[in-house]
């Protein structure tokens, strides 16, 4: 039995029920293609308030495309995105006021200091009493001693902490984290995960989290979505999913899911170019 067929109760990619409760994010029928390449193929999912959802998949699965669409920097070919119930396509500014993100591929300007970066983004997000909020974040992310240091010369771990501080500057209701602990040592990563989990619990912020660290996903996420070739293959609790699908760990399940669609492809015709 294929993993996809064994998905069970959840129907990946199906439209969400209209009476879905308290969603920080709802995406319905999202589709995006570049010329002949379909990057995201009609996926539907949601992130509830206070829930941490892992978006998993091999490279090129469509994770970043999905995140970019939710961030409003990439327009879907089809589908609907609602943040806190606000339709992104129609009310972009209002929807994005409830959102923030941190991504490894979107470093903050290295020629601004830590404080200046936080000040800049607190103003961009129109945060009232921004100075107080910045001081809170500098304390919370252990950045006080670096406040006047240009962010371009910070270590990668310090840059990650700054990116996370910036991601929380507007106290978002939806947080998108693309490999937030990729550059951190195990101790710092553990600390950051704890803080993010605590924040989700305390504030009810919904979090969409991508990571290639399956231990981290098991420890942090309430639910995971497996994405491959632009489709959601599977979703569920990261702690029970592996057993339910005959895998010994989430990592093993990940590897099987990542390889299965490739194995299902017909062999190349004799003489075809490699």
């Amino acid at each position, binding site marked *: 039995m294929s993993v996809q067929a064994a998905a069970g109760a959840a129907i990946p990619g199906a439209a969400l029920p209209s009476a879905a409760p308290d969603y920080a994010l709802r995406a319905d029928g999202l589709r*995006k293609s*570049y010329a002949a390449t379909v990057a995201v193929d009609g996926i539907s999912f949601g992130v509830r308030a206070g829930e941490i959802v892992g978006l998993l998949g091999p490279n090129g699965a469509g994770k970043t495309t999905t995140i*970019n669409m939710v*961030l*409003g*920097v*990439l*327009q879907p070919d089809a589908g609907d995105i609602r943040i806190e119930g606000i339709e992104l396509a129609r009310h*972009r*500014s*209002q929807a*994005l*006021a409830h*959102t923030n*993100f941190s*991504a490894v*591929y*979107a*470093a*903050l*300007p*290295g*020629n*601004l*200091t830590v404080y*200046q970066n936080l*000040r*800049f*983004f607190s*103003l*961009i*997000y*129109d*945060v009232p009493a*921004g100075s107080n909020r910045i001081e809170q974040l500098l304390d919370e992310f252990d950045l006080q001693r670096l406040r006047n240091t240009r962010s371009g010369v910070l270590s990668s771990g310090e840059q990650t902490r700054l990116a996370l501080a910036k991601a929380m500057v507007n106290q978002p209701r939806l947080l998108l984290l693309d490999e937030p602990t990729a550059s951190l040592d195990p101790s710092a990563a553990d600390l950051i995960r704890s803080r993010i989990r605590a924040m989700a619990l305390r504030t009810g912020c919904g979090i969409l989290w991508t990571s290639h660290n399956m231990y981290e996903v098991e420890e942090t996420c309430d639910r995971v979505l497996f994405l491959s070739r632009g489709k959601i293959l599977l979703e569920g609790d990261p702690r029970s999913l592996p057993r339910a699908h005959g895998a010994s760990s989430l990592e093993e399940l990940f590897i099987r899911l990542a390889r299965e669609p490739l194995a299902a492809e017909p062999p190349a015709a004799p003489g075809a170019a490699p």
Partner: protein
Amino acid sequence: MKLRPIAAIALRQFYLMRSSPTRVLPMIAWVAIDIILWGFISRYLNTVTSSGINFISSLLGAVLFWDFFTRVMQGVTMAFFEDVWSRNFINVFATPLLISEYLTGLVLTGVTTSLVGLLVMLVLATWLFGLPFFSLGLLLLPFLLVLFLFGIALGVLASAMVLRLGPASEWLVWPIPALLSPFVGVFYPLSTLPAWMRAVGHLLPPSYVFESMRSVVGGHGYSGNGLLTGIALALLDILLAAWSFTAIYRYAVRSGLLARYSAESVS
């Protein structure tokens, strides 16, 4: 539009300038060099010609106005380039920031930096060469307004072009003022030009400023209708530039260009 996001764009530029002499120096150095060079040329021409034209007023004055226009345009584009150079588009545009707020922030930056340049030019031209700049009286206001509005329009249009074509197209921006200068008659009347160049010149708002300036310096008064035409054209250009930027931004969001913006995105 909200004030804080607009202030953010301008404040970012202030932070960068405060900490970087290499950003401040060009604001002052190039205009100073231009004024000194053209000041001496004008003084020399005054001594060797008997045309009755005061070259300090007509030539150096024209250089000052043209440099002001160039500084306005570059002030807008430089603020935009900061986001290009630091690959900051996703951070900036994945926020509630409106395009109108972003452009207003760029314009605010352009205003500030160009006023610094204008001040430096005025001090040097008056102090070293005795340019009677304020003898133009209230006419200075419409003159500067036309150049200011057109500088903003070109700055926004140039930014839109770089957004569409990618960072490598930055070099296309710098020669724009030089390409326009033959058509607007900075140093000579439009009547000097062949008909087709004159026709182009009449579509460019600065040509009305330079024609009026020469007329006033020559003691012939100015054309109010000409200046009004210049202001109207400059306002129209601003609308066209803002529309172009918005259309290209939307294309960039639709096509994925914004999300993947890098040196390789020229297409």
